[in-house]
């Protein structure tokens, strides 16, 4: 992990806070394992998540990683961010 990188738990917390406050309506319960498409995530919201990750973690998620396996839940996303941070 490089200097200044967040620990996995902090990444997960930051993503959860962002999704709860800025993406989903207050009535929608978002947990680390919530399936985000089923919860109503659309393509514009996905773009906003990508911008949030760019700003917060200084990472550009490659197109090849923007798929169901890597980004369908907060848990997946935090794992992906962790992995990308290890590789930089």
């Amino acid at each position, binding site marked *: 992990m490089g200097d200044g990188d967040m620990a996995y738990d902090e990444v997960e917390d930051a993503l959860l806070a962002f999704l709860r406050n800025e993406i989903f309506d207050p009535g929608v319960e978002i947990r680390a394992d919530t399936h985000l498409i089923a919860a109503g995530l659309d393509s514009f919201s996905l773009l906003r998540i990508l911008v949030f990750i760019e700003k917060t973690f200084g990472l550009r998620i490659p197109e090849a990683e*923007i798929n169901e396996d890597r980004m369908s839940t907060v848990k997946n996303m935090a794992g992906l961010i962790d992995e990308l941070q290890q590789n930089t």
Partner: protein
Amino acid sequence: MMNLYALFRDAAGRYPDRPAVIDKDIFVSYRELDDMICVLAEDLNAFGVLPRQMIGLCFVNSPAYIAVTYALWKLDAVVVPIDADFKEAEVRQVCDRMQLSAVIHHQGGGDSWPTGSCPKVETPFYFRSMYSGTRSESGIHMAFVRFTSGTTGTRKGVVLSHERIHERICAVNKALGITCADRVLWTLPMSHHFVSTIVLYLACGAGIVLSGGIWSRAILETIQRHHVTLLYASPFHYSLLAADTSDQMMPGVRMAISTASGLPGWIHERFYRRFQLPLAQAYGIIEIGLVCINTDRPAKKPDSVGPVLPDYQVHIKNPQTYPGGDGMTCGEVFFRGPGFFDAYFDPWIDQTSALVDGWFETGDIGGLDADGYLYLYGRKNHVINTAGMKVFPREVEAELNRHPEVKESCVYGRKHDRLGQIVAARVVLHNGVAEVDSAALKAFCRRNLATYKVPEYIDFTEYIEKTPATGKIVRSL
């Protein structure tokens, strides 16, 4: 007098058993869609909707969105689409400025809808408003008014009649050649795209396949399972599809149209390499319709939005060499042709007065190559295009300026490789004391603005540059 519902009903008579809309595994045939429309029209009529009333429609993409639109047209009411992401204050603003008689909303809270009469439509809600009058300006047979936000002094609402919409879909189909054999994959919000697209597909007996997700795997499966022949999507969707690592191809797709914002070269290259299918850029504006589609040479000239469609003419005014124009002679882009908007709504300005000697001024800067292909290089004004959603800086500035700590603000578009542009703001605080941070200001904006309008970046500054002559804010970075 022609009516777009009658155009649909003709198609439903010719193709009753063909699918009109496919949503996951639900097939709605033309006959079923017509039945839904008729039941909804009766319900709406019983609820008090009258001809020429303005009715807001705030709905997510669904077969119901389409059915309600045509039901309103069947009653000769006027459809005013409202962005499904709009906050209550924004819906109220549309309601007041457009003097809507009612809003049909996908979320709860309004008067109850007559229940049980239309099984395939999830219970919509119906809000009555204070305006009950009907509109009949200048004898225009209004079908649709697109509310455009913006601020005081700008023209609000683009009026389209049944006749003009019919003209524009006839013009578009000379390039697309849609028939009953086509199935179109639909990915974009219906509140932003409808009259040059869905109305056309449903007049031709084609099927509309709702994408059912955003991940490439799900979309590729949908394309294959439902025998999609035409894609209509934004560059972002294509960038995700291009990164798909399976070996699934799209053999049945005859055309892939990229719209909503400019197509970056790298997305075209990767998509073409992956699927051996070029992306055809299309250029549409609500006032004039889809006037250019690069159907002929998308692979050879992927950066072009194509030649102007046969029914239209393009004119480049005040040509000069622009920075970023690759040495091409560029100027302000104007169009002339059929199916243009009938008027601006508020204040009411009829088409003749709004056009410049019969030409529509797009506000875009572009140029034509030797073959007559149009290339776009930027905008004359400051509308921000973030992933296809248009944001008017002055609307966002007005919201920021309502915060008690904010003295003034300047909202502009920053370049972004995925979104095209991203909303950013520079803010001056009273007394220069930073008692609010950017998170607090964003939270403040989110109360009354749809999320795509809320600035992603907020910088605090000591002053905002103004042009010396007019005192206007300088919005360029």
